């Protein structure tokens, strides 16, 4: 018998989730497909515009992240509930915050893997012409904030479902509606009062500040507040054990 000591602690829970989301064939395939689709869509206009501009790339990910966050989060809690492993989680000496944060950090690890996988495209663009490094940093921080918001929301949603497909579809649809409701496409068709109200919680308007390279404090507060809110709501939901078992 050959014993090996695999992985350390906090990491234990994160590693468990990563094994499910990323460290398997379907996980790598998801990253590869996401990467290919985004790069393909980006390349459609890139050569037409003739500028070494990364904005369209990060503009595209806002839609891709909705699908990705919904898909990843359905495995986080809905799957645990469907397979009854949520009872194991609740029987271990870990707090609801630790459970939620471990899943959140595992999701962020997937995000960083995606950004890393897009690195060759960014390097390639920088060879073709000058790229504003500050703007790239803004893009990356903005996309991190955006993914964090989507993922924290989807985690919360997945606590309400035992069916992973239902969790995925609800998260996908509601995030899509939320994002779209803050865009000019929708607000132009709504009464002023309502469009003003929607603008205050518009993901799009705050994300755009990152895309133009000058993120506002309000945008940082917006994303941070909503991420914390959904993580906190997930913890509260998890504390109501009757409803998640």
């Amino acid at each position, binding site marked *: 018998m050959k014993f090996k000591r695999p992985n350390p602690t906090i990491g234990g829970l994160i*590693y468990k989730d990563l*094994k*499910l989301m990323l460290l398997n064939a379907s996980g790598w395939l998801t990253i590869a497909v996401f990467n290919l689709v985004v790069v393909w869509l980006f390349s459609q206009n890139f050569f037409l515009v003739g500028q070494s501009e990364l904005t369209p790339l990060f503009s595209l990910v806002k839609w891709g992240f909705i699908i990705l966050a919904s898909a990843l989060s359905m495995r986080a809690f809905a799957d645990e509930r469907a397979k*009854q492993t949520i009872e194991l989680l*609740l029987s*271990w000496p870990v707090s609801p915050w630790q459970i939620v944060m471990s899943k959140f950090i595992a999701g962020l690890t997937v995000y960083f893997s995606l950004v890393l996988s897009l690195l060759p495209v960014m390097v390639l663009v920088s060879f073709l012409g000058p790229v504003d490094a500050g703007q790239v940093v803004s893009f990356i921080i903005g996309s991190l904030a955006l993914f964090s918001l989507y993922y924290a929301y989807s985690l919360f949603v997945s606590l309400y479902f035992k069916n992973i497909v239902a969790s995925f579809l609800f998260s996908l649809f509601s995030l899509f509606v939320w994002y779209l409701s803050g865009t000019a496409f929708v607000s132009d068709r709504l009464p002023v009062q309502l469009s003003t109200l929607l603008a205050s919680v518009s993901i799009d308007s705050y994300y755009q500040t990152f895309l133009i390279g000058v993120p506002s404090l309000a945008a940082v507060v917006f994303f941070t507040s909503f991420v914390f809110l959904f993580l906190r709501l997930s913890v509260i939901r998890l504390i109501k054990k009757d409803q998640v*078992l």
Partner: protein
Amino acid sequence: MIKLKQISKSFGSFKALDKVSFSLRQGVITAFLGVNGAGKTTTMRIINGILDADSGQVKVDSYDPHKQPLKVRQIVGYLPENNPLYTNLEVVEYLALVAKLHHVSDFPAGQKALFAKMGIDKVWQRHIDELSKGYRQRVGLTAALIHRPKVLILDEPLSGLDPVQKGEIIGLLKQIGKKTTVLFSTHVLAEVKDLCDDVIIINKGKIVYQDHLDSRKGQYLKLLVKFAGTKSKINGLIKAKPQIKLVSLASLKPGLWQADFQILGSKKQQDSLLRFLSAGLADSGIILEFRPESESLSDLFYRLTKNEV
């Protein structure tokens, strides 16, 4: 080690537990019997702090699972019903995770003997989803034991195991049960006789029986009485003779009681106590049935849960 006092729990309009009280001692293996939906799993979850009771008090080694759930979970080993596992992990990854969360510093070297007894060493680096049901059960049990818990709560631990495996695991649990408080739910009464010291039967969310298993092996005389009269008369007789122990008392209809007694003492003393009891009851009511018997555990279980079987 474990004390439950007047625990009640409802799910919507369904009352899962109704003023459940019992206590479990250290070094005693207790069988927890009941038909499906009787409240076994809910009770076990409340002891481990996985669920909160609506009312009542629970103490696990002086900790309250509602207020100090992490302390309780640190000293409890738990095997849930249906043995859910993270099947995408290797056995070693899963056990390492459980060990780390319970702050087991000597993993895996300190548990080599446990792994060998459980036969886990043979499947150490295999994915759990590749394992047979029997091996999965062993992995679940090993995970429950890995931090050397003071309290072991096992919901159907022997399901899926073949007779040889069952024998091995029963042997192991007997050994562990000498120092550990074990609460063990099962439907298979033969397992209870092989393994357990005490037995608790729950039906429709109420404890209907709690006793030492030895008493079922003929050390005590059992007495079933159906009596039309007052409850206070029965209580009065018990108070007068401490060798007469009331095990359960059920109201069949107003004024009609069914009581289970244990009669302690030598054969001569038991005869004398039977005479005392029959005379006392006849004095203030009507005895409809007076049956000294040695009732088997299965008979008792079916009688107490017959409305559900």
